[in-house]
């Protein structure tokens, strides 16, 4: 069985300068309670790897507004003007990466691969300064594996052993991030006994999950 921790206890494990992967797509499937506790703790200088930063003061946007982020690797920041401003002003160092490449880079980190060979972005300004690898006369853009100190993931259901199942479009980057971080903290909507989630419906085996966020006071 895994230890259930409060969002505050989880946030306390994360120090200034940590590299975090955070699940979610426009806040859908993001660990909102954990993010709120991180903001509360006042952590600084984070590197965030995530698909996007949601909206101003929502989801990962809360960390942006709180000034907790020094570096961001994401595919899209268009719906959060605060992140765009912070990028243009040089307050946050933002690396924009195609969404499919970003997902594969995280997977490569978690699966022990040496990186990703892709056609996406090849020949565009987004490939400037990046490594091109020639395979039998054909150029491929190389993207390195990504890893993190922590993955903060959200899920629909989690059992007492940390077995996780995701739901609908809240799945997105969560399963792949759960493979790519030193410590995985999972914020479930529902916590169920072992055996409630059948083996075929476990998307992230519990061996990958280090801490489960406890149910909230009102839950």
């Amino acid at each position, binding site marked *: 069985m895994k230890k259930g921790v409060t969002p505050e206890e989880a946030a306390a494990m994360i120090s200034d300068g940590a590299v975090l992967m955070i699940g979610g797509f426009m806040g859908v499937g993001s660990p909102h309670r954990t993010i709120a506790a991180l903001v509360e703790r006042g952590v600084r200088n984070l590197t965030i790897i995530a698909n996007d930063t949601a909206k101003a003061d929502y989801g990962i946007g809360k960390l942006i507004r709180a000034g907790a982020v020094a570096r961001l690797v994401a595919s899209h920041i268009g719906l959060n003007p605060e992140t765009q401003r912070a990028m*243009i002003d040089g307050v946050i160092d933002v690396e924009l990466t*195609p969404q499919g490449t970003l997902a594969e880079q995280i997977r490569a980190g978690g699966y022990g691969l040496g990186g990703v060979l892709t056609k996406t972005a090849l020949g565009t300004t987004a490939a400037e300064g990046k490594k091109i690898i020639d395979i039998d006369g054909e150029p491929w853009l190389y993207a390195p594996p990504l890893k993190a100190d922590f993955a903060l993931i959200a899920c629909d259901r989690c059992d007492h052993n940390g077995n996780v199942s995701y739901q609908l479009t809240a*799945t997105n980057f969560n399963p792949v991030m759960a493979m790519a971080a030193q410590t995985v903290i999972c914020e479930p909507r529902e916590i169920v006994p072992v055996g409630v989630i059948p083996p075929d419906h476990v998307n992230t085996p519990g061996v990958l999950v280090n801490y489960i966020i406890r149910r909230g006071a009102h839950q």
Partner: protein
Amino acid sequence: MTLSPDEIIQRRVALELHEGTLVNLGIGLPTGVSKYIAPSLGILFQSENGIVGMDSRPPEGMEDEELTDAGGGYISAVPGAATVDSTMSFGLIRGGHLDATVLGGLQVDEKGHLANWVVPGKMVPGMGGAMDLVSGARRVLVAMQHTARGNPKIVPECTLPLTATRRVTLIITDLAVIEPTDAGLVLLERAPGVEVAEIVAATSARLIIAEVVPEMAFGG
């Protein structure tokens, strides 16, 4: 029947989508294409945040916070839909399993290159899934107004950063259907009531024009 510019584009794009295939519609104008697709065709719409078989917004009060499109808006799912994680979603896109992607454009040029993701110094939204879609889909359909504030968007060479160096399949605007080829941009069709001279005037790129350029023919 008088159609609005958006309706012309959406109805014409709809004719390009084939029975039983997987299609990705970009946010905005492209999303509206689905209005003109008969459900009997069994075309499945993908949203790159992780669903094959998205449906329109459910009735008020029926929304699920775990079921949204790539813009974060509530959606529903058709019977037989499948939800997938981001790696699988982009595997479908990048592996050539998506028959068509319909995207908006800022510029398209004589080589058929599309620019639609950034206006340096002004707009830095990030490319999201656009580069993956243009690189990976079997067919890339650009659906856009022919001009922006009177300025041509179909240009000799893109001045904005490209989304991909791959040539798009077809450009469908409120004035014309244009196909990029080895020889250049071929004007295939005119919008209803639009003259060829009007299209040429609204286009700064060179167009290859056949003797007869038919009007777009809509089903309905």
